[in-house]
């Protein structure tokens, strides 16, 4: 398995609180992605990174921010969580010049 770890795996938080999800890789891959998975919507890209401190928005970036201060970590932050952000969040990594992406096991976030 590709060396990719998401933490936490499960989290319940209250509306209005900040939440940070972490994606950690040991593969030294250039590209990292954050997706959310919801029934009927498939996987939707939130943000992605193409290098340290280089990030770009995806399809559903509103309400989310990201940071990548070092190659191995890609953080997703919900500044003020809302119930609509209840979802399963997946991180993925991909090497430069590669086409296959490798996925983490997912983080189930519930906002109550």
């Amino acid at each position, binding site marked *: 398995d590709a060396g990719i770890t998401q933490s936490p795996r499960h989290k319940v938080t209250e509306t209005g609180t900040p939440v940070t999800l972490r994606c950690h890789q040991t593969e030294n891959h250039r590209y990292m992605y954050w997706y959310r998975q919801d029934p*009927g919507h*498939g*996987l939707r890209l939130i943000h992605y990174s*193409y290098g340290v401190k280089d990030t770009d928005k995806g399809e559903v970036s509103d309400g989310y921010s990201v940071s990548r201060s070092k190659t191995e970590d890609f953080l997703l932050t919900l500044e003020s969580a809302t119930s609509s952000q209840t979802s399963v969040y997946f991180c993925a990594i991909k090497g430069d010049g590669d086409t296959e992406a490798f*996925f983490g096991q997912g983080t189930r976030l519930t906002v109550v």
Partner: protein
Amino acid sequence: AQSVTQLDSQVPVFEEAPVELRCNYSSSVSVYLFWYVQYPNQGLQLLLKYLSGSTLVESINGFEAEFNKSQTSFHLRKPSVHISDTAEYFCAVILGTDKLIFGTGTRLQVFP
């Protein structure tokens, strides 16, 4: 505009029957096309991909997909499914600078 469209949200089929999962892509996108599979409570994993060359690509577990430029399609097929093929299948494309975009997914349910 949707880059990838999966026309069927669910496909029920009996074991040993053939199956086709449909995927159409926008003609404006690059022609790096993928099928990923997600088994219950797991992350996604690559099933097969089309980058260039032969328009028919195969996976190790009997699935195949054909790139059809005139119909902008990349349908996934298997001549005889097994119970273990029950999973969700996602079609995906790479846009621009390695932005990986997924369709809404097709849930394949194989019945005995």
